[in-house]
Protein backbone atom coordinates (compact mmCIF):
# COMPACT_ATOMS: atom_id res chain seq x y z
CA UNK A 1 0.00 0.00 0.00
CA UNK A 2 2.69 2.44 1.05
CA UNK A 3 4.57 1.74 -2.18
CA UNK A 4 1.56 2.76 -4.19
CA UNK A 5 1.05 5.91 -2.14
CA UNK A 6 4.71 6.73 -2.63
CA UNK A 7 4.46 6.17 -6.39
CA UNK A 8 1.41 8.35 -6.70
CA UNK A 9 3.20 11.23 -5.04
CA UNK A 10 5.20 11.69 -8.26
CA UNK A 11 3.14 13.58 -10.86
CA UNK A 12 4.92 11.88 -13.80
CA UNK A 13 4.04 8.46 -12.39
CA UNK A 14 0.41 9.47 -11.92
CA UNK A 15 0.37 10.52 -15.58
CA UNK A 16 2.06 7.28 -16.62
CA UNK A 17 -0.51 5.25 -14.67
CA UNK A 18 -3.52 7.18 -15.95
CA UNK A 19 -2.38 7.20 -19.57
CA UNK A 20 -1.07 3.66 -19.45
CA UNK A 21 -4.27 2.19 -18.02
CA UNK A 22 -6.38 3.80 -20.71
CA UNK A 23 -4.01 2.82 -23.50
CA UNK A 24 -3.74 -0.78 -22.29
CA UNK A 25 -7.51 -0.99 -22.14
CA UNK A 26 -7.89 0.30 -25.73
CA UNK A 27 -5.11 -1.91 -27.02
CA UNK A 28 -6.63 -4.98 -25.36
CA UNK A 29 -10.16 -4.39 -26.72
CA UNK A 30 -8.94 -3.66 -30.24
CA UNK A 31 -6.53 -6.55 -29.83
CA UNK A 32 -9.36 -9.07 -29.43
CA UNK A 33 -10.67 -8.39 -32.92
CA UNK A 34 -7.18 -8.01 -34.42
CA UNK A 35 -5.93 -11.29 -32.98
CA UNK A 36 -9.06 -13.21 -33.92
CA UNK A 37 -8.92 -11.90 -37.47
CA UNK A 38 -5.26 -12.91 -37.77
CA UNK A 39 -4.05 -9.32 -37.87
CA UNK A 40 -1.85 -9.64 -34.78
CA UNK A 41 1.24 -8.46 -36.61
CA UNK A 42 -0.37 -5.16 -37.55
CA UNK A 43 0.38 -3.81 -34.07
CA UNK A 44 4.02 -4.69 -34.49
CA UNK A 45 4.22 -3.21 -37.99
CA UNK A 46 2.54 0.01 -36.95
CA UNK A 47 4.86 0.50 -33.99
CA UNK A 48 7.89 0.31 -36.26
CA UNK A 49 6.34 2.77 -38.68
CA UNK A 50 5.64 4.99 -35.72
CA UNK A 51 9.28 4.74 -34.67
CA UNK A 52 10.38 5.82 -38.14
CA UNK A 53 7.99 8.75 -38.14
CA UNK A 54 9.01 9.87 -34.64
CA UNK A 55 12.72 9.76 -35.46
CA UNK A 56 12.17 11.87 -38.54
CA UNK A 57 10.11 14.31 -36.50
CA UNK A 58 12.79 14.56 -33.81
CA UNK A 59 15.51 15.06 -36.43
CA UNK A 60 13.54 17.81 -38.14
CA UNK A 61 12.59 19.40 -34.85
CA UNK A 62 8.84 18.95 -35.34
CA UNK A 63 6.37 18.05 -32.63
CA UNK A 64 6.30 14.23 -32.54
CA UNK A 65 2.57 13.42 -32.27
CA UNK A 66 1.12 15.62 -35.07
CA UNK A 67 3.63 14.07 -37.48
CA UNK A 68 3.48 10.45 -36.47
CA UNK A 69 -0.28 9.99 -35.97
CA UNK A 70 -1.22 10.76 -39.60
CA UNK A 71 1.71 8.72 -40.92
CA UNK A 72 0.77 5.70 -38.83
CA UNK A 73 -2.93 5.98 -39.74
CA UNK A 74 -1.87 5.98 -43.38
CA UNK A 75 0.28 2.92 -42.79
CA UNK A 76 -2.66 1.19 -41.07
CA UNK A 77 -4.84 1.78 -44.15
CA UNK A 78 -2.10 0.47 -46.38
CA UNK A 79 -1.63 -2.69 -44.32
CA UNK A 80 -5.37 -3.40 -44.24
CA UNK A 81 -5.65 -2.80 -47.97
CA UNK A 82 -2.81 -5.19 -48.70
CA UNK A 83 -4.44 -7.79 -46.50
CA UNK A 84 -7.82 -7.38 -48.17
CA UNK A 85 -6.56 -7.49 -51.72
CA UNK A 86 -4.52 -10.55 -50.93
CA UNK A 87 -2.03 -9.77 -53.65
CA UNK A 88 0.87 -10.17 -51.26
CA UNK A 89 0.86 -12.38 -48.19
CA UNK A 90 -0.01 -9.99 -45.40
CA UNK A 91 2.60 -11.22 -42.92
CA UNK A 92 5.34 -10.72 -45.49
CA UNK A 93 4.02 -7.26 -46.37
CA UNK A 94 3.91 -6.22 -42.72
CA UNK A 95 7.42 -7.52 -42.08
CA UNK A 96 8.71 -5.61 -45.08
CA UNK A 97 7.03 -2.34 -44.18
CA UNK A 98 8.04 -2.48 -40.55
CA UNK A 99 11.69 -3.22 -41.32
CA UNK A 100 11.81 -0.44 -43.90
CA UNK A 101 10.29 2.09 -41.51
CA UNK A 102 12.72 1.07 -38.78
CA UNK A 103 15.63 1.44 -41.23
CA UNK A 104 14.47 4.92 -42.28
CA UNK A 105 14.27 5.94 -38.63
CA UNK A 106 17.74 4.64 -37.82
CA UNK A 107 19.42 6.20 -40.87
CA UNK A 108 17.77 9.58 -40.35
CA UNK A 109 18.73 9.53 -36.69
CA UNK A 110 22.37 8.65 -37.28
CA UNK A 111 22.71 11.30 -40.00
CA UNK A 112 21.33 14.05 -37.79
CA UNK A 113 21.21 13.92 -34.03
CA UNK A 114 22.81 10.55 -33.39
CA UNK A 115 21.27 8.08 -30.97
CA UNK A 116 19.96 10.47 -28.36
CA UNK A 117 18.15 9.32 -25.25
CA UNK A 118 14.94 10.46 -26.93
CA UNK A 119 15.33 8.05 -29.80
CA UNK A 120 16.51 5.19 -27.66
CA UNK A 121 13.51 5.65 -25.39
CA UNK A 122 11.30 5.27 -28.46
CA UNK A 123 12.86 1.86 -28.96
CA UNK A 124 12.53 0.51 -25.44
CA UNK A 125 10.13 2.90 -23.81
CA UNK A 126 10.42 5.44 -21.06
CA UNK A 127 8.23 6.03 -18.09
CA UNK A 128 8.80 9.77 -18.46
CA UNK A 129 7.26 9.85 -21.91
CA UNK A 130 3.65 10.47 -20.88
CA UNK A 131 2.97 14.21 -21.06
CA UNK A 132 -0.16 16.00 -19.94
CA UNK A 133 -1.42 16.36 -23.51
CA UNK A 134 -0.79 12.65 -24.11
CA UNK A 135 -3.05 11.84 -21.19
CA UNK A 136 -5.81 14.06 -22.61
CA UNK A 137 -5.47 12.33 -25.97
CA UNK A 138 -5.62 8.94 -24.22
CA UNK A 139 -8.90 10.01 -22.56
CA UNK A 140 -10.41 10.88 -25.93
CA UNK A 141 -9.11 7.66 -27.45
CA UNK A 142 -10.45 5.39 -24.74
CA UNK A 143 -13.82 7.15 -24.85
CA UNK A 144 -13.95 6.42 -28.58
CA UNK A 145 -12.91 2.79 -28.20
CA UNK A 146 -15.28 2.10 -25.30
CA UNK A 147 -18.11 3.86 -27.14
CA UNK A 148 -17.47 1.75 -30.22
CA UNK A 149 -17.47 -1.47 -28.21
CA UNK A 150 -20.64 -0.63 -26.28
CA UNK A 151 -22.72 0.66 -29.19
CA UNK A 152 -21.48 -1.67 -31.93
CA UNK A 153 -20.61 -4.74 -29.86
CA UNK A 154 -22.76 -7.16 -31.84
CA UNK A 155 -21.62 -5.81 -35.17
CA UNK A 156 -18.00 -6.07 -34.10
CA UNK A 157 -18.67 -9.67 -33.15
CA UNK A 158 -20.28 -10.40 -36.51
CA UNK A 159 -17.52 -8.74 -38.53
CA UNK A 160 -14.81 -10.44 -36.48
CA UNK A 161 -16.40 -13.86 -36.70
CA UNK A 162 -17.37 -13.84 -40.33
CA UNK A 163 -16.64 -11.03 -42.73
CA UNK A 164 -18.40 -12.61 -45.72
CA UNK A 165 -21.62 -13.28 -43.82
CA UNK A 166 -21.63 -9.76 -42.38
CA UNK A 167 -21.17 -8.27 -45.84
CA UNK A 168 -24.07 -10.33 -47.14
CA UNK A 169 -26.19 -9.15 -44.19
CA UNK A 170 -25.55 -5.57 -45.24
CA UNK A 171 -23.06 -4.52 -42.58
CA UNK A 172 -20.57 -1.97 -43.82
CA UNK A 173 -17.50 -4.09 -43.17
CA UNK A 174 -14.95 -1.70 -44.63
CA UNK A 175 -16.22 1.05 -42.33
CA UNK A 176 -15.46 -1.12 -39.31
CA UNK A 177 -12.07 -2.01 -40.73
CA UNK A 178 -11.20 1.64 -41.18
CA UNK A 179 -12.38 2.60 -37.69
CA UNK A 180 -10.41 -0.27 -36.18
CA UNK A 181 -7.31 0.70 -38.15
CA UNK A 182 -7.47 4.36 -37.11
CA UNK A 183 -8.05 3.60 -33.43
CA UNK A 184 -5.27 1.00 -33.43
CA UNK A 185 -2.89 3.47 -35.04
CA UNK A 186 -3.59 6.15 -32.43
CA UNK A 187 -3.28 3.61 -29.60
CA UNK A 188 0.07 2.43 -30.88
CA UNK A 189 1.51 5.92 -31.32
CA UNK A 190 0.39 6.97 -27.85
CA UNK A 191 1.55 3.83 -26.10
CA UNK A 192 4.76 3.40 -28.01
CA UNK A 193 6.84 6.02 -26.26
CA UNK A 194 6.08 4.54 -22.89
CA UNK A 195 6.22 0.85 -23.83
CA UNK A 196 8.80 1.10 -26.60
CA UNK A 197 8.49 0.32 -30.30
CA UNK A 198 9.76 -3.20 -29.77
CA UNK A 199 7.28 -4.02 -26.99
CA UNK A 200 4.03 -2.14 -27.65
CA UNK A 201 2.48 -4.90 -29.76
CA UNK A 202 2.35 -7.07 -26.65
CA UNK A 203 -0.39 -4.81 -25.27
CA UNK A 204 -2.45 -5.69 -28.33
CA UNK A 205 -1.76 -9.41 -28.46
CA UNK A 206 -1.29 -10.70 -24.91
CA UNK A 207 -4.64 -9.93 -23.24
CA UNK A 208 -6.66 -11.52 -26.04
CA UNK A 209 -4.48 -14.61 -26.28
CA UNK A 210 -4.43 -15.02 -22.52
CA UNK A 211 -8.20 -14.71 -22.17
CA UNK A 212 -8.76 -17.21 -24.97
CA UNK A 213 -7.01 -19.89 -22.90
CA UNK A 214 -9.85 -19.87 -20.38
CA UNK A 215 -12.96 -18.15 -21.72
CA UNK A 216 -15.26 -19.77 -24.21
CA UNK A 217 -17.51 -16.88 -25.17
CA UNK A 218 -16.68 -13.76 -27.12
CA UNK A 219 -18.19 -11.63 -24.37
CA UNK A 220 -16.03 -13.39 -21.79
CA UNK A 221 -12.89 -12.88 -23.84
CA UNK A 222 -13.60 -9.18 -24.40
CA UNK A 223 -14.35 -8.45 -20.73
CA UNK A 224 -11.47 -10.53 -19.47
CA UNK A 225 -9.03 -8.92 -21.90
CA UNK A 226 -9.96 -5.44 -20.73
CA UNK A 227 -9.64 -6.30 -17.05
CA UNK A 228 -6.49 -8.32 -17.55
CA UNK A 229 -4.79 -5.53 -19.50
CA UNK A 230 -5.43 -2.99 -16.76
CA UNK A 231 -4.37 -5.35 -13.94
CA UNK A 232 -1.20 -6.48 -15.72
CA UNK A 233 -0.26 -2.92 -16.54
CA UNK A 234 -0.63 -1.78 -12.92
CA UNK A 235 1.29 -4.77 -11.57
CA UNK A 236 4.02 -4.31 -14.17
CA UNK A 237 4.41 -0.61 -13.42
CA UNK A 238 4.59 -1.22 -9.69
CA UNK A 239 7.19 -3.94 -10.21
CA UNK A 240 9.14 -1.59 -12.45
CA UNK A 241 9.14 1.02 -9.68
CA UNK A 242 10.05 -1.39 -6.89
CA UNK A 243 12.82 -3.25 -8.76
CA UNK A 244 13.96 -0.29 -10.90
CA UNK A 245 13.39 -2.24 -14.13
CA UNK A 246 12.31 -0.65 -17.43
CA UNK A 247 8.54 -0.04 -17.42
CA UNK A 248 7.65 -1.51 -20.81
CA UNK A 249 9.60 -4.72 -20.36
CA UNK A 250 8.21 -5.23 -16.85
CA UNK A 251 4.64 -4.96 -18.12
CA UNK A 252 5.37 -7.47 -20.88
CA UNK A 253 6.83 -9.93 -18.39
CA UNK A 254 3.74 -9.65 -16.18
CA UNK A 255 1.63 -10.24 -19.31
CA UNK A 256 3.66 -13.34 -20.04
CA UNK A 257 3.17 -14.56 -16.46
CA UNK A 258 -0.59 -14.09 -16.78
CA UNK A 259 -0.55 -15.95 -20.08
CA UNK A 260 1.21 -18.95 -18.56
CA UNK A 261 -1.11 -18.91 -15.55
CA UNK A 262 -4.23 -18.82 -17.74
CA UNK A 263 -2.77 -21.49 -20.00
CA UNK A 264 -2.34 -23.75 -17.00
CA UNK A 265 -5.83 -22.98 -15.72
CA UNK A 266 -7.28 -23.71 -19.15
CA UNK A 267 -5.47 -27.04 -19.36
CA UNK A 268 -6.69 -28.05 -15.90
CA UNK A 269 -10.28 -27.10 -16.77
CA UNK A 270 -10.23 -29.07 -20.00
CA UNK A 271 -8.78 -32.10 -18.26
CA UNK A 272 -11.45 -32.00 -15.54
CA UNK A 273 -14.21 -31.92 -18.12
CA UNK A 274 -12.68 -34.70 -20.18
CA UNK A 275 -12.29 -36.97 -17.17
CA UNK A 276 -15.86 -36.64 -16.04
CA UNK A 277 -17.05 -40.27 -15.74
CA UNK A 278 -19.44 -41.32 -18.51
CA UNK A 279 -23.05 -41.67 -17.46
CA UNK A 280 -22.66 -39.30 -14.52
CA UNK A 281 -25.90 -37.80 -15.80
CA UNK A 282 -26.92 -34.21 -15.87
CA UNK A 283 -26.89 -31.80 -18.71
CA UNK A 284 -23.16 -31.26 -18.75
CA UNK A 285 -22.08 -34.76 -19.56
CA UNK A 286 -24.94 -35.33 -21.92
CA UNK A 287 -23.74 -32.31 -23.76
CA UNK A 288 -21.13 -34.40 -25.34
CA UNK A 289 -17.84 -34.26 -27.13
CA UNK A 290 -15.23 -31.79 -26.04
CA UNK A 291 -12.17 -30.94 -27.98
CA UNK A 292 -9.94 -33.49 -29.59
CA UNK A 293 -11.18 -36.62 -27.92
CA UNK A 294 -14.76 -36.16 -29.10
CA UNK A 295 -13.70 -35.42 -32.60
CA UNK A 296 -11.45 -38.45 -32.76
CA UNK A 297 -14.29 -40.74 -31.83
CA UNK A 298 -16.53 -39.19 -34.36
CA UNK A 299 -14.21 -39.94 -37.20
CA UNK A 300 -14.30 -43.61 -36.41
CA UNK A 301 -18.05 -43.90 -36.81
CA UNK A 302 -18.93 -45.99 -39.80
CA UNK A 303 -21.59 -44.83 -42.19
CA UNK A 304 -23.96 -47.55 -41.03
CA UNK A 305 -23.56 -46.64 -37.39
CA UNK A 306 -24.04 -43.02 -38.24
CA UNK A 307 -27.25 -43.76 -40.08
CA UNK A 308 -28.63 -45.85 -37.22
CA UNK A 309 -27.67 -43.19 -34.73
CA UNK A 310 -29.22 -40.54 -36.84
CA UNK A 311 -32.51 -42.43 -36.97
CA UNK A 312 -32.42 -42.88 -33.23
CA UNK A 313 -31.62 -39.24 -32.81
CA UNK A 314 -34.50 -38.13 -34.94
CA UNK A 315 -36.91 -40.34 -33.05
CA UNK A 316 -35.66 -39.11 -29.71
CA UNK A 317 -36.19 -35.53 -30.73
CA UNK A 318 -33.86 -32.79 -31.54
CA UNK A 319 -32.14 -31.52 -28.45
CA UNK A 320 -29.97 -34.28 -27.14
CA UNK A 321 -29.48 -35.56 -30.65
CA UNK A 322 -26.70 -33.50 -32.11
CA UNK A 323 -24.68 -33.96 -28.99
CA UNK A 324 -25.41 -37.52 -28.01
CA UNK A 325 -24.22 -39.17 -31.22
CA UNK A 326 -20.46 -39.39 -30.84
CA UNK A 327 -20.70 -40.25 -27.16
CA UNK A 328 -22.93 -43.15 -27.88
CA UNK A 329 -20.39 -44.50 -30.29
CA UNK A 330 -17.58 -44.01 -27.85
CA UNK A 331 -19.43 -46.15 -25.37
CA UNK A 332 -20.12 -48.83 -27.92
CA UNK A 333 -16.51 -49.00 -28.93
CA UNK A 334 -15.36 -49.40 -25.40
CA UNK A 335 -17.72 -52.33 -24.97
Amino acid sequence: MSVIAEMLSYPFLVRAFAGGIMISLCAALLGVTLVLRRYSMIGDGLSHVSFGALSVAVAAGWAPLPVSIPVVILAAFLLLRITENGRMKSDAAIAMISASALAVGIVVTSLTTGMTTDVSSYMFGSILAMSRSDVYLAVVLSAAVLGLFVVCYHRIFAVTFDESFSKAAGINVSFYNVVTAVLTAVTIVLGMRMMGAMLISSLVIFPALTSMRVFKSFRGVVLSSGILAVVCFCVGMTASYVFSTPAGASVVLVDLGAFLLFGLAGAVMRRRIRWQPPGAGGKRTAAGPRGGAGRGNRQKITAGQAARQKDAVERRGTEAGAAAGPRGTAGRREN
Partner: protein
Amino acid sequence: MNTLITCRHVDFGYENHDAVIDLTMEVNEGDYLCVVGANGSGKSTLVKGLLGLIKPMGGELTVAEELRRTGIGYLPQQTAAQRDFPATVREVVISGTLNRRGNRPFYSAAEKRLADSAMEKLGITGIRNHCYRELSGGQQQRVLIARALCATSRMLILDEPVTGLDPSAIQDFYRLIRRLNREEGVTILMVSHDVAGVIGQANRILHLQQRALFFGTPDEYRRTEAGRRYLGGEDGCP
Protein backbone atom coordinates in the same frame (compact mmCIF):
# COMPACT_ATOMS: atom_id res chain seq x y z
CA MET B 1 -44.64 -21.67 -57.89
CA ASN B 2 -42.91 -18.35 -57.36
CA THR B 3 -39.68 -17.53 -59.10
CA LEU B 4 -37.24 -16.14 -56.55
CA ILE B 5 -34.24 -15.30 -58.71
CA THR B 6 -34.04 -14.91 -62.48
CA CYS B 7 -30.82 -14.41 -64.44
CA ARG B 8 -31.06 -13.47 -68.12
CA HIS B 9 -27.73 -13.40 -69.97
CA VAL B 10 -26.01 -12.15 -66.83
CA ASP B 11 -22.26 -11.48 -66.63
CA PHE B 12 -20.54 -11.22 -63.27
CA GLY B 13 -16.92 -10.22 -62.82
CA TYR B 14 -14.33 -7.83 -61.53
CA GLU B 15 -12.98 -4.79 -63.38
CA ASN B 16 -11.88 -6.13 -66.75
CA HIS B 17 -12.32 -9.82 -66.14
CA ASP B 18 -15.61 -11.66 -66.35
CA ALA B 19 -15.81 -14.74 -64.18
CA VAL B 20 -19.37 -15.68 -65.14
CA ILE B 21 -20.51 -15.10 -68.71
CA ASP B 22 -23.96 -15.07 -70.25
CA LEU B 23 -25.72 -17.03 -67.54
CA THR B 24 -29.42 -17.71 -67.92
CA MET B 25 -31.16 -19.57 -65.13
CA GLU B 26 -33.84 -19.25 -62.53
CA VAL B 27 -34.40 -20.35 -58.97
CA ASN B 28 -37.96 -21.22 -58.00
CA GLU B 29 -39.46 -21.41 -54.57
CA GLY B 30 -38.75 -24.81 -53.02
CA ASP B 31 -35.92 -25.60 -55.44
CA TYR B 32 -32.80 -27.47 -54.40
CA LEU B 33 -30.28 -26.16 -56.88
CA CYS B 34 -26.75 -27.42 -56.91
CA VAL B 35 -23.96 -25.49 -58.64
CA VAL B 36 -21.00 -27.60 -59.72
CA GLY B 37 -17.86 -26.86 -61.68
CA ALA B 38 -14.08 -26.86 -61.52
CA ASN B 39 -12.06 -24.48 -59.34
CA GLY B 40 -12.08 -21.00 -60.81
CA SER B 41 -15.19 -21.68 -62.86
CA GLY B 42 -17.04 -18.73 -61.36
CA LYS B 43 -19.08 -20.49 -58.67
CA SER B 44 -18.07 -18.20 -55.84
CA THR B 45 -18.43 -15.15 -58.05
CA LEU B 46 -21.98 -16.23 -58.89
CA VAL B 47 -22.75 -16.55 -55.18
CA LYS B 48 -21.42 -13.05 -54.50
CA GLY B 49 -23.50 -11.75 -57.39
CA LEU B 50 -26.70 -13.38 -56.13
CA LEU B 51 -26.07 -11.99 -52.65
CA GLY B 52 -25.70 -8.51 -54.11
CA LEU B 53 -22.07 -8.13 -53.07
CA ILE B 54 -21.06 -7.46 -56.67
CA LYS B 55 -23.19 -5.92 -59.39
CA PRO B 56 -23.84 -7.73 -62.67
CA MET B 57 -21.65 -6.37 -65.50
CA GLY B 58 -24.34 -7.10 -68.07
CA GLY B 59 -27.67 -8.81 -68.55
CA GLU B 60 -30.60 -8.74 -66.20
CA LEU B 61 -30.74 -10.10 -62.64
CA THR B 62 -34.17 -10.06 -60.99
CA VAL B 63 -34.58 -10.87 -57.32
CA ALA B 64 -38.12 -11.36 -56.03
CA GLU B 65 -39.48 -8.61 -53.78
CA GLU B 66 -39.92 -10.95 -50.80
CA LEU B 67 -36.27 -12.00 -50.97
CA ARG B 68 -35.07 -8.45 -51.23
CA ARG B 69 -37.02 -7.60 -48.10
CA THR B 70 -35.82 -10.45 -45.91
CA GLY B 71 -32.48 -11.08 -47.54
CA ILE B 72 -30.86 -14.41 -48.30
CA GLY B 73 -29.42 -16.71 -45.68
CA TYR B 74 -25.78 -17.32 -46.45
CA LEU B 75 -23.36 -20.01 -45.34
CA PRO B 76 -19.89 -18.90 -46.45
CA GLN B 77 -16.90 -21.16 -46.75
CA GLN B 78 -15.39 -21.58 -43.32
CA THR B 79 -12.15 -19.77 -42.70
CA ALA B 80 -9.26 -21.10 -40.66
CA ALA B 81 -9.74 -18.27 -38.17
CA GLN B 82 -13.27 -19.42 -37.40
CA ARG B 83 -12.34 -22.92 -36.45
CA ASP B 84 -10.84 -21.79 -33.15
CA PHE B 85 -13.00 -18.77 -32.45
CA PRO B 86 -13.98 -18.26 -28.81
CA ALA B 87 -17.73 -17.78 -29.04
CA THR B 88 -20.70 -19.66 -27.70
CA VAL B 89 -23.12 -21.33 -30.07
CA ARG B 90 -25.80 -18.86 -29.05
CA GLU B 91 -23.60 -15.84 -29.75
CA VAL B 92 -22.93 -17.10 -33.26
CA VAL B 93 -26.55 -17.99 -34.02
CA ILE B 94 -28.07 -14.73 -32.83
CA SER B 95 -25.59 -12.73 -34.90
CA GLY B 96 -27.63 -13.90 -37.89
CA THR B 97 -30.43 -11.51 -36.96
CA LEU B 98 -28.22 -8.46 -37.51
CA ASN B 99 -29.69 -7.58 -40.89
CA ARG B 100 -33.16 -7.18 -39.39
CA ARG B 101 -32.07 -4.73 -36.85
CA GLY B 102 -31.28 -1.26 -38.14
CA ASN B 103 -29.12 0.63 -35.69
CA ARG B 104 -30.33 -0.60 -32.32
CA PRO B 105 -27.31 -1.69 -30.28
CA PHE B 106 -28.93 -4.64 -28.47
CA TYR B 107 -30.99 -7.66 -29.41
CA SER B 108 -34.75 -7.56 -28.86
CA ALA B 109 -36.85 -10.33 -27.34
CA ALA B 110 -38.18 -11.21 -30.80
CA GLU B 111 -34.66 -11.72 -32.10
CA LYS B 112 -33.79 -13.91 -29.13
CA ARG B 113 -36.88 -16.03 -29.81
CA LEU B 114 -35.87 -16.31 -33.46
CA ALA B 115 -32.42 -17.55 -32.48
CA ASP B 116 -33.97 -20.04 -30.04
CA SER B 117 -36.27 -21.47 -32.67
CA ALA B 118 -33.46 -21.71 -35.21
CA MET B 119 -31.36 -23.65 -32.70
CA GLU B 120 -34.35 -25.87 -31.97
CA LYS B 121 -34.79 -26.65 -35.69
CA LEU B 122 -31.15 -27.62 -36.03
CA GLY B 123 -31.07 -29.70 -32.85
CA ILE B 124 -28.37 -27.63 -31.18
CA THR B 125 -30.36 -26.20 -28.26
CA GLY B 126 -28.53 -28.59 -25.93
CA ILE B 127 -25.15 -27.17 -26.83
CA ARG B 128 -26.16 -23.51 -26.91
CA ASN B 129 -23.60 -22.50 -24.29
CA HIS B 130 -20.79 -24.59 -25.69
CA CYS B 131 -17.80 -23.06 -27.30
CA TYR B 132 -17.88 -23.01 -31.09
CA ARG B 133 -14.26 -24.12 -31.46
CA GLU B 134 -14.86 -27.27 -29.40
CA LEU B 135 -17.60 -28.60 -31.66
CA SER B 136 -17.07 -31.17 -34.38
CA GLY B 137 -17.10 -30.00 -37.99
CA GLY B 138 -20.66 -31.23 -38.50
CA GLN B 139 -21.93 -29.42 -35.42
CA GLN B 140 -20.18 -26.24 -36.52
CA GLN B 141 -22.06 -26.43 -39.81
CA ARG B 142 -25.35 -26.82 -37.94
CA VAL B 143 -24.55 -23.69 -35.97
CA LEU B 144 -23.81 -21.74 -39.14
CA ILE B 145 -27.04 -22.95 -40.77
CA ALA B 146 -28.98 -21.86 -37.69
CA ARG B 147 -27.36 -18.46 -38.02
CA ALA B 148 -28.32 -18.26 -41.69
CA LEU B 149 -31.91 -19.24 -40.83
CA CYS B 150 -32.01 -16.29 -38.42
CA ALA B 151 -31.43 -14.02 -41.39
CA THR B 152 -34.21 -15.60 -43.44
CA SER B 153 -36.06 -18.86 -43.70
CA ARG B 154 -36.90 -18.40 -47.39
CA MET B 155 -33.64 -19.21 -49.09
CA LEU B 156 -30.19 -20.43 -48.15
CA ILE B 157 -27.03 -20.13 -50.23
CA LEU B 158 -24.35 -22.58 -49.15
CA ASP B 159 -20.80 -22.24 -50.45
CA GLU B 160 -18.96 -25.58 -50.42
CA PRO B 161 -20.47 -26.59 -47.08
CA VAL B 162 -19.10 -30.13 -46.84
CA THR B 163 -15.43 -29.26 -47.34
CA GLY B 164 -13.44 -30.69 -44.46
CA LEU B 165 -16.25 -32.80 -42.99
CA ASP B 166 -15.76 -36.49 -42.47
CA PRO B 167 -17.95 -38.88 -44.48
CA SER B 168 -20.55 -39.55 -41.82
CA ALA B 169 -20.87 -35.84 -41.06
CA ILE B 170 -21.37 -35.21 -44.78
CA GLN B 171 -24.25 -37.69 -44.91
CA ASP B 172 -25.76 -36.08 -41.79
CA PHE B 173 -25.41 -32.72 -43.41
CA TYR B 174 -27.16 -33.74 -46.65
CA ARG B 175 -30.00 -35.29 -44.66
CA LEU B 176 -30.38 -32.08 -42.71
CA ILE B 177 -30.45 -29.87 -45.81
CA ARG B 178 -32.97 -32.18 -47.47
CA ARG B 179 -35.18 -31.97 -44.40
CA LEU B 180 -35.02 -28.16 -44.40
CA ASN B 181 -35.85 -28.17 -48.10
CA ARG B 182 -38.77 -30.62 -47.95
CA GLU B 183 -40.29 -29.97 -44.54
CA GLU B 184 -39.55 -26.32 -43.88
CA GLY B 185 -39.83 -25.27 -47.52
CA VAL B 186 -36.44 -23.56 -47.57
CA THR B 187 -35.11 -22.94 -51.06
CA ILE B 188 -31.53 -24.19 -51.31
CA LEU B 189 -28.71 -23.13 -53.59
CA MET B 190 -25.59 -25.14 -52.84
CA VAL B 191 -22.15 -24.83 -54.40
CA SER B 192 -20.33 -28.13 -54.14
CA HIS B 193 -17.47 -30.22 -55.43
CA ASP B 194 -19.15 -33.39 -54.25
CA VAL B 195 -21.21 -33.97 -57.39
CA ALA B 196 -21.86 -37.64 -56.74
CA GLY B 197 -23.16 -36.81 -53.27
CA VAL B 198 -25.55 -34.04 -54.23
CA ILE B 199 -26.97 -35.37 -57.46
CA GLY B 200 -29.37 -37.58 -55.55
CA GLN B 201 -30.56 -34.64 -53.44
CA ALA B 202 -30.96 -31.72 -55.78
CA ASN B 203 -33.78 -31.14 -58.25
CA ARG B 204 -31.73 -28.78 -60.41
CA ILE B 205 -28.07 -28.87 -61.43
CA LEU B 206 -26.10 -25.94 -62.81
CA HIS B 207 -22.71 -26.85 -64.24
CA LEU B 208 -20.63 -23.73 -64.55
CA GLN B 209 -17.49 -23.22 -66.59
CA GLN B 210 -17.57 -19.44 -66.92
CA ARG B 211 -20.60 -20.13 -69.13
CA ALA B 212 -23.35 -22.48 -68.06
CA LEU B 213 -22.44 -25.88 -69.54
CA PHE B 214 -25.65 -27.35 -68.23
CA PHE B 215 -28.76 -26.26 -66.39
CA GLY B 216 -31.54 -28.76 -65.76
CA THR B 217 -32.61 -31.77 -63.77
CA PRO B 218 -30.15 -34.35 -62.38
CA ASP B 219 -31.54 -37.05 -64.69
CA GLU B 220 -30.79 -34.98 -67.76
CA TYR B 221 -27.41 -34.08 -66.33
CA ARG B 222 -26.42 -37.73 -66.03
CA ARG B 223 -26.95 -38.10 -69.76
CA THR B 224 -24.82 -35.13 -70.83
CA GLU B 225 -21.13 -35.24 -71.70
CA ALA B 226 -20.15 -32.92 -68.84
CA GLY B 227 -22.23 -34.86 -66.36
CA ARG B 228 -20.74 -38.22 -67.32
CA ARG B 229 -17.24 -36.84 -67.01
CA TYR B 230 -17.97 -35.39 -63.57
CA LEU B 231 -19.79 -38.39 -62.24
CA GLY B 232 -17.17 -40.77 -63.55
CA GLY B 233 -18.82 -43.66 -65.36
CA GLU B 234 -22.08 -44.37 -67.16
CA ASP B 235 -24.45 -44.25 -64.25
CA GLY B 236 -22.15 -42.40 -61.87
CA CYS B 237 -24.36 -41.97 -58.87
CA PRO B 238 -24.39 -44.70 -56.22
